[in-house]
């Protein structure tokens, strides 16, 4: 992955994380979205959808494809690792 893509995705994730702290909705109850959902609750429901979109973007552009080829090292399958260092 290019460095610019990496930086862009990192920035994107940080912005999404920051959007969780919606101080502008803190004391507001209205408008009621769909007539019954207080704005603070509707915002965070939307945030959950945004989180799913964020993960879809990461899967699309930052998926660790190299891990798909991982194979067991010879002699390690189903055997406890010798950790008696």
């Amino acid at each position, binding site marked *: 992955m290019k460095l610019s893509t990496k930086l862009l995705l990192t920035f994107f*994730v940080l912005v*999404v*994380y920051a959007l*969780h*702290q*919606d*101080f502008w*909705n*803190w*004391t*507001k*109850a*209205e408008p*009621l979205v769909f*007539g*019954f*959902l*207080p704005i*603070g*609750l509707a*915002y*965070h*429901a939307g*945030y*959950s*959808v945004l*989180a*799913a979109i*964020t*993960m*879809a973007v*990461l*899967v699309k552009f930052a*998926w*660790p494809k*190299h*891990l*798909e080829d*991982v*194979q*067991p*090292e010879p002699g*390690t*399958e*189903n*055997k*406890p*690792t010798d*950790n*008696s*260092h």
Partner: protein
Amino acid sequence: MIPVVVILVYLAVIAIIGGVAYRRAKSNTEDFFLAGRGVGSTVFFLSLFATNMTAFAILGSSGQAYRQGIGIYGLMASSSGLVIPLTIFLIGTRLWAIGKRFGHQTQVAFFRDRWECSGIGTVIFALCAAMLVPYMIISIMGGGTVLAHISTAAGGGQPLIPYWLGCAIVAVVVTVGVFLGGMRGTVWVNILQTTLFLLFGAVAVWVISRHLSISDLISKLAGDPKTSALVTREKMPERFFWSYSLIPLSSIMFPHMAIMCFSARKVTAFKRTVVLYPLAIMMIWLPCVFLGVLGFAALGKVSDPDGILLLMLEQYAPAWLAGILGAGIISAVMGSDAHQVLALSTMFTKDIYQHYGGAKKFGEKGAVLFARIFIVIVTIGAFLVALELKDKQGIFEIAVRYAFSGFAAMAPVMVAALFWKRSTKWGALASTLFVGATLIIFGAMQGSPTPPPAAKPAVGATTNAAPTLTATNTAAALASITATNKPSATNAPAAAAPKPKVIWQIGEGKGAIQVISLAPNGDVRFLGFMTVVPMVFGSALCMILFSLLTRPPSEKTIEKYFPKT
């Protein structure tokens, strides 16, 4: 009667699944603990989700929303919807790959190999086990309480399933399921559990909303200054709200979650999981939080807010829906408990028994036998503790909520192991000791909850007698993490929260900085933040400083985990 039928059906299903899984089992630990690393994509998502969801997601969330309003969703659900999938994406996939390459089945096995240490691995094991055990005990306590609660007739009286029998049912079902089926049986049961979970919320809102004018009720709450706090976050401190977003870092560090990551057949199984995870959380939490708030508007003051959803269903839904709810709650309790028992068994077998010579003496068959015996012993032990210390449940609840901060503070250790070549075993030891020490210190400073001032019910509410549900798995434990009070008996959300008690402040008057204080629920606050904040950053600092001051692992080990491509 319905809950009893549900339990019998559930028992039968568990027994059948355990039996089928037992017949397909091979006599080796990889098969018993990780289902042979063969869990497919859909089952992996459903199972990983069930592993992390407890009865709190249904009962606790609505109870907390009843007390504190809609802010609970942003506090606990939407932040988890981002942070948990992120950690699964970044850490879970790497853990899976390392497990596949080198045969590791636990986090500690990886740490030992990665940092060439045995004793330090044992220290990490001890801390993780100590933080997991109370969680497991409280699961059984919660199961007993929930079963007693839902088997009590609407008018009160003796429960059909008393507390001790409820605990016994949970312990027996979990033991049978895990003993026979291991990880394979557990994940198969999770399919049923998660499906029940995901369907419940939407169905409950649909059924209840047919009997209520929900727009009018919410508008009334918003329009009344005494209750408007329920539909805003005006009583929730911003620092607290932010610091809670670090708590979901604990998820991937819980042994049962990390071990689940080893069980996937392919790394691509993580793709669907991380995208669907936030939506699945929303499907459960959004209806439950909304119904909790709606419950206050519709029913007014109740003696037990954690039972608000049950009361709403009693009033507005047919018995079959209450039965499904019962099934959902029971399966949630047992599902997460099964993973905790299995994780403890995996850790003891792999990190202690096999590591200290059992593997050479008794081989793989002996290890599986050891694991099964351990499962029986640990559940009997937890059952006895649940009976003996029923009245001291609060101690376990405090232990569990500190465990969430503790596991979150161990995240820097995992990140360093996976991504920082220069990290060392001494850095890991320093972080672990720091986490252990802060847990003890903050635990010792923990205060008692301050009773809230009495408040009147709102929106012309009436008082409803409800059976007392003192704890629902981690419900009460997590509930009391929240900033404002978690009153014990009558709960009125619009009540003004008592002020924090200052333990240490710098300066006087208006310019004084409150360094350490106690929140109204007795929890320690550091500069107004939850203790998880200094714990996570302190742990990361320890890891960095002590790693830079000490010798890195050998070139051979670094090359093993960070191959040059």
